[in-house]
């Protein structure tokens, strides 16, 4: 890991004599090499966002980008007369990316020096390197999934969503309903797990329950009838949020053991964790099973703790806990939160599609008998 350079999450382009040849203000017409278009499209498909820091007339430059058919590829473009170090900082702030994940490409050594003077952690490339970028390891993510290919689209949907939220005047729950959220809960396959793995690697901010299961472990459990590996995706009328959660459940006779529940911090404000828990509690209730959730408190998963408690989980003892294997020495700080499952009404803020765990389990038990 140490010798592998940190992935670039956003590349900031200069325009004149970098993205295109010529100076749009002076020449009027500029030449746009098809090879540059290919680079833009390739980086976009790898899930690397792209932006612009150009000293230019905004309207003129943007019109040119639209004419070339590449305007849609850029998020938060900074086209104006300010310092480029400020533009790069603004772009990183708006995307909530660390500067260590930002790259900047410009034909002017002084501009690169100016950006690096304020932000030594930003990686700067001269314009003549543009065609080499796609071959560099820092622009080559290990996984390229459906979500990476749609990342820009997801960010752009996010901007529109945020803009709408700012102007929305009313209770949060009404706003949530206006989003027309659809949560798809499904049994995972190999492809789904790769998306989850990519999400954890990228953000390292999964609102995990503090208990870690490796990708290999989860993959091995995909075909185990006593375990369910479940992934969660979310979409709304602005577009997809992509894979936002993963859940690992093991069936015992009298209880369902929730060994892992992780949801992306991006969807915490939508109450996704609570909706998911309520669905699971309702399924367990239909099967007449208690629910036990492993939970290791960390400084990052407080919201998950609150979601468990408000869903009714407690630390009170129950006989059913004797069915579970003892915790390993390394997991002694893991709490086993317990709940006698009861039927729950469906979510009021989103549409949920999910497998019928209890019914499927009953069918399998019937087949065995």
């Amino acid at each position: 890991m140490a010798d592998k350079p940190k992935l670039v999450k956003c590349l900031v382009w200069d325009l004149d004599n970098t993205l295109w040849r010529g100076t749009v203000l002076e020449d009027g017409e500029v030449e746009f090499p098809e090879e540059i278009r290919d680079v833009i499209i390739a980086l976009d498909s790898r899930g690397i966002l792209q932006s612009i820091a150009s000293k230019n007339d905004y309207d003129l430059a943007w019109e040119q980008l639209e004419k070339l058919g590449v305007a849609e590829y850029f998020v938060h473009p900074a086209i104006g007369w300010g310092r480029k170090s400020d533009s790069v900082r603004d772009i990183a702030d708006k995307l909530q990316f660390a500067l260590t994940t930002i790259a900047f490409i410009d034909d002017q050594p002084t501009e690169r020096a100016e950006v690096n003077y304020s932000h030594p952690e930003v990686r700067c490339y001269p314009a003549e390197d543009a065609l080499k970028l796609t071959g560099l390891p820092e622009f080559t993510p290990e996984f390229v999934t459906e979500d990476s290919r749609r990342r820009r689209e997801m960010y752009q949907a996010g901007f529109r969503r945020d803009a709408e939220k700012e102007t929305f005047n009313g209770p949060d729950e009404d706003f949530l309903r206006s989003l027309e959220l659809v949560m798809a809960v499904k049994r995972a396959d190999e492809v789904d797990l790769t998306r989850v793995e990519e999400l954890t690697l990228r953000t390292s901010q999964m609102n995990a329950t503090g208990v870690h299961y490796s990708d290999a472990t989860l993959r091995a459990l995909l075909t185990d009838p006593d375990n369910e590996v479940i992934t969660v995706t979310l979409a709304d009328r602005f577009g997809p949020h992509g894979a936002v959660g993963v859940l690992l459940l093991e069936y015992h006779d009298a209880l369902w053991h929730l060994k892992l529940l992780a949801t992306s911090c991006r969807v915490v404000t939508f109450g996704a964790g609570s909706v998911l828990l309520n669905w699971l509690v309702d399924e367990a209730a239909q099967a007449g099973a208690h629910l036990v959730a492993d939970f290791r408190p960390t400084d990052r998963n407080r919201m998950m703790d609150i979601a468990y408690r408000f869903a009714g989980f407690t630390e009170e003892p129950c006989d059913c806990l004797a069915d579970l294997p003892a915790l390993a020495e390394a997991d002694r700080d893991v709490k086993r939160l317990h709940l006698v499952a009861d039927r729950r009404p469906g979510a009021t803020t989103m549409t949920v599609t999910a497998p019928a765990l209890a019914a499927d389990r009953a069918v399998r038990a019937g087949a065995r008998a």
Partner: protein
Amino acid sequence: MTAEQTELTAGEIEKGLRGHLDSVLNTAVEPDQDLFKSGLVSSMFAMQLVVHLEETYDIAIIGADLKLDSFRTVQAMTELVLRLRAAAAGADA
């Protein structure tokens, strides 16, 4: 922290909480009104309430105190705040 700063009455807490709820829910709530039953607040809002109480009243709400019933009414929240502040003051003394 001096005794004067820590001394908050039930009435003051109740008033503060109702003011907070009025402003975020855009409607007046009664001290004994069931906030969840009346459909006023979602469980997500309840989570924000936890954080609000902790920050406003300088308390930590953890473990068994983190249950929906403690946040069901203004009265229940007031009791929770008073109890946790008293416990914290007792521990400091």
